[in-house]
């Protein structure tokens, strides 16, 4: 997160200059570093698709991409977002951290299906993600930025916050009330972290989350039917018995 040569780069003065020159708080540093030139810079490397390895997800709980610090952040976060209660075990025991690790270590995290050529421009939020970072790198840089904000605001890393403070902190990040000098933290949380959390809960257990189909049981999703042709009329408007014992891909394999 630091400039490559801090001795030659006084960021605070630089940002002050920026604000005067641009006359608007929305002018972010990258524009001024030259990215507003319209001619295309060299295209970013085309991402190499790395297949996800769902088989390993089931047999190993060792993280593939998270460092110990990153794992501590993510585990604290999923346990906060999914506390152990009458509905499910805690997030780690539901496999949520493992799911996120596997997604980031696999094709999704490496930028599969993501267009990564220049020019790089800032624009309205309606056009979505516009950074050259792979999702894996964006996730990790955002995590470091959030941790730095946690230290700044609360004097300790996110993983060491008590649950109530941690919850308020995540709410503030989601609502755009926690800022980082360079990285868009609200976008990081709302458009990368939160979708991964949601997928970790409700995707097929094949990918490491939703362990024992716990979230499917919780909502009454019966999982994967082979056939429902007769059920369509038989259970219209009535409780569906299959909802109590959902079937996953592995159950059919």
């Amino acid at each position, binding site marked *: 997160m630091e400039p490559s040569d801090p001795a030659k780069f006084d960021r605070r003065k630089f940002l002050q200059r920026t604000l005067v020159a641009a006359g608007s708080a929305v002018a972010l540093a990258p524009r001024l570093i030259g990215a507003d030139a*319209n*001619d*295309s810079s060299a295209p970013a490397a*085309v991402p190499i698709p790395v297949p996800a390895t769902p088989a390993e997800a089931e047999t190993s709980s060792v993280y593939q991409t998270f460092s110990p610090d990153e794992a501590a952040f993510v585990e604290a976060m999923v346990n906060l*977002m*999914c*506390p152990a*209660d009458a*509905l*499910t075990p805690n997030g780690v025991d539901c496999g949520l951290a493992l799911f996120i690790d596997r997604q980031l270590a696999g094709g*999704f995290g490496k930028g*599969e*299906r*993501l*267009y*990564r*050529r220049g*020019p790089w*421009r800032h*624009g309205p*939020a*309606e*056009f*979505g*993600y*516009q950074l050259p970072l792979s999702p894996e790198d964006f996730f990790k840089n955002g995590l470091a930025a959030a941790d730095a904000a946690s230290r700044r605001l609360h004097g300790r890393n996110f993983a060491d916050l008590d649950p109530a403070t941690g919850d308020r902190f*995540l709410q503030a990040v*989601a609502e755009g009330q926690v800022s980082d000098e360079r990285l868009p933290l609200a976008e990081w949380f709302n458009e990368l972290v*939160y979708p991964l*959390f949601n*997928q970790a809960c*409700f*995707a*097929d257990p*094949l990918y490491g989350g939703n362990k024992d189909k716990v*979230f*499917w049981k*919780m*909502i*009454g*999703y*019966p*999982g*994967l*039917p*082979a056939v*429902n*042709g007769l*059920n*369509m009329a038989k*259970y*219209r*408007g*009535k*409780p*569906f018995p299959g909802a109590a014992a959902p079937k996953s*891909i592995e*159950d*059919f*394999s």
Partner: protein
Amino acid sequence: MVIVGGGLSAGMVARQLTAKGIEVLVLENGGDVRNSAAAKLPTQRDELRWATHTGLMQDGAAETYTWRHNRTDPSLAMRRLAVFLPGSGVGGAGNHWNGQAFRWEEYDTELRTRMETRYGKSSIPANMPIRDWGVSYSELEPYYDLFERLFGISGKAGNLRGKIMPGGNPFEAPRQNEFPQRPLEETEIGLIFRSAADKFGYKSFLSPAANSPDAYTNPDGMKLGACQYCGHCDRFICEAEAKATPSVLLYPLLARRPSFELRKFCHVIRIEHDAAGGQVRAVEYLDLLTGETFRQPADVVVLAAFTLSNTKLLLTSGIGRPYDAAANAGVVGRNFCYQTNAAISVYLPDRWLNPFLASGSTVTLIEDFDDDNFDHTGLGFLGGGFIAAGSGGGRPIAARGVPPGTPRWGTRWKQANADWYAHAGSVGFQGSSYPHRENFLDLDPDYRDAYGQPLLRVTFDMRENELRMAKYCAGKMVEIARAMGAARLGGLPEVTANFDTRGYQSTHITGGTIMGRDPATSVVSSRLQHWDAENLFVVGASVFAHNSGHNPTELVATLALRLGDDLVRYVGRPGRLA
């Protein structure tokens, strides 16, 4: 004859031509998905892989699109394709559609005449270039009918040879024949919607569907299985082959015909145009398996790729005058239209909605506010759409509703999901999108695809007509939602400017190479023949001069079948088709 793109349109054109022994070569840039993991149990039922990660769609890393709201804005690349999802592989988007199979209204292809006749010439804003397409419904009817028999469409006639039929859609264009298959089973929420709509006197009916209610054999001897209401239609391949698609009903048939050749993994880069001679001569393509570029000579070329690819190929090949919005001149790229959608959630704690018991077309709807089915006098807009309720499958990553005010995580979030999953549904509106002078397509000057060509640039926003139309129709939708007896409703829907490309809205995108009678305002004739190259034809939703509230697929297939017959005539006697 060379056809660019191996999807629904290409399959329909090739069916007509190869039946007469005419040699057809289809160049398709993807592979065959019919026996892949996408089409087999249990891997077919993988929401994360096929729906969330859009595993069957065009790879946006290789080719995406750029977008801007106005032509004075800089464009940005849509770095993750989400708002619409072009298909990939043999059969194209026709493989993973939901199956909703509508005929358009009788007046749709003569829209300008309809509006001028009903409301006067001054009712059409100067910036709304709606057109007559140069073809009438009665010319299309036999091809609609043929398509419905080929794809085994299920439904109940609402207008049989001009007679309004009970149980069907009374706004339906008159049909010569009843649907070849009975309607699907209806959902619980569809029935609740139906009884609420009936209180207002609206005419509810079940969507016509390409999801086969029973085993079916079509006139070509091709077979469909029976729908199992598994909830995995859109974005998925049907492993039961119960959803009518090109890869089940068309390409296996074509493969048996000696005059047909399909070349997969061939990405077409350019059409060679002899402008002086008014002809195209060849197609240039990159063979993705060898990395070599080939020149394929052709007597006739048919562009039958995805809507946006048809426009892009004409622009990169320099065929036809690009549209210039500032001057309101030129043709290629004009009349780009989208779809105007809104929805509201309904929460019915005492009703078991079981959203997972569904097919992609188990949708109950009304067309009382569709297109020009109602009097627009004094309303200040043109167009409209259908209002509908149903389920697409209740897949749990994407399709869970929790009431407004629910926290986004924690025990209360989990409890709300547990409480509402089986009891939450939505009422939706799918509206027309009429052309606007400032909504158009051109080549992006800055961004390029993996093949070294410019990305196509979309300039589009919701303009005043669509904003007013959506406000009026969403109001009608909310009235019905309230009458459904919902304990709670979701946030009130609002269609706004600053079009948002981050989430899926619809793949019903149209225009760019529109058909018409006037070479000054259309790219192809009403016979889909290019004005500047007599042996070049374009087919697909890119020829639509506007988008209606109806799903485009059935009209796309209908125009392709008609073109196939026209091309049989053309091969016998080349020249400008009347």
